[in-house]
């Protein structure tokens, strides 16, 4: 579901075109900060047409995201969360992979620091994704930008980037598509949590292994070709070793950070 739309290489690809915008409708863009010329070409508006377009475009994908939602709901109820608690988490966190990992970490007593830190680390990618939208969002008010970004998930970010790049200038597309994700994500969580509460012994249905399977599916989607090999091997090795040596679930963060550090070191432009 995570469509592989590459963020625009704006700073490099468009540098040589930034002076071409004589008909630039947004003079405020014309500071010394090099921005891609495309976003400035069409004025970015924020209205119902964008919300509707985003919602309708994203609805079929949001239904698919519901698959994760059902799975999350089942796992959450197996972990001891009530339907209301699971639904609340989906409604206010709205970040699938991190929620599923949080449920994996859930225990009695709840390891609050580990959970919050891990959620933060997993969702750090949203910072990069949000930053990629800045060229189009800079003319919008902070209320609209922050409000829209709350509803950003992997799927609708990719759709939004595609829509903005095509020059439609619909600044509310992210909000509309995010609302579609939000509605189906919360609903499917409720469904999953209800089903999970009715399921008895998880091993009987293979549900005990479902979380691992969800991550296998996530990994299959996140696979980015050859460039994934080294960081993934580093993460795998560090996580397996750390899980044997370090108490608790710190191996997840250690594996992820080790991969990021190695990537920073071996980066060659």
């Amino acid at each position, binding site marked *: 579901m995570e469509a592989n739309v590459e963020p625009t290489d704006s700073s490099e690809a468009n540098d040589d075109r930034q002076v071409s915008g004589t008909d630039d409708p947004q003079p405020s863009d014309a500071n010394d900060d090099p921005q891609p010329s495309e976003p400035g070409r069409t004025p970015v508006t924020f209205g119902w047409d964008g919300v509707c377009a985003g919602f309708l475009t994203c609805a079929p994908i949001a239904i698919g995201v519901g*698959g994760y939602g059902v*799975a999350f709901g089942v796992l959450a*109820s197996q972990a001891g969360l*009530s*339907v209301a*608690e699971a639904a*609340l*988490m989906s409604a*206010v*966190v709205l*970040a699938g*992979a*991190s929620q599923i*990992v*949080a449920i994996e970490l859930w225990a009695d007593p709840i390891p609050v620091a580990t959970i*919050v830190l891990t*959620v933060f*680390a*997993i*969702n750090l*990618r*949203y*910072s*990069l994704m*949000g*930053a*990629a939208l*800045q060229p189009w969002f800079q003319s919008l008010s902070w209320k609209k930008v922050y409000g829209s*970004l*709350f509803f950003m998930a992997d799927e609708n970010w990719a759709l939004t980037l595609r829509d903005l790049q095509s020059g439609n200038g619909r600044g509310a597309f992210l909000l509309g598509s995010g609302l579609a994700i939000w509605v189906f994500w919360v609903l499917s969580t409720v469904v999953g*949590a*209800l089903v999970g*509460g*009715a399921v008895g012994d998880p091993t009987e*249905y293979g549900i005990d*292994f*479902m979380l*691992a*399977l*969800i991550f*296998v*599916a996530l*990994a*299959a989607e*996140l*696979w980015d070709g050859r460039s*994934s090999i080294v960081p*993934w091997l580093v*993460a*795998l090795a560090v*996580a*397996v070793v750390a899980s*044997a040596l370090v108490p608790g679930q710190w*191996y997840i963060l250690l*594996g*992820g950070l080790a*991969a990021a550090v190695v*990537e920073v070191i071996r*980066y060659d*432009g």
Partner: protein
Amino acid sequence: MTAEPANALSVVPSSGALALDPFVVAVVLAMAAVTVLTKVGGIWIVRHVELSDRLEAGLSVLPGAIVIAVLGPELAAGGPAEWSAAGLVVLVMWKTESILLALVAGVLGVVGFRALL
């Protein structure tokens, strides 16, 4: 299993589908707070700080690396049945790109392979 009022949520027994433990709610809100921070933080940062390409490259491998870090020990703890089911999920994901189909195949695979292997 106490009989609860006939509302749609009463399928779930005991503690109550609508129960909201204050501590759980606090943890969920903390999760929400850091998530919002990541979602709005990027735009805030690019306006104030110049991120090096090097650092961006490191950040971009985080999601996949974290998924693998979760998976590694879990798969290592499993056996041939679990590994086969994991392979089945990858295969179905590749062929259909449907998470639902892949998960259904995987769960059936776990049950089936455990009975066979």
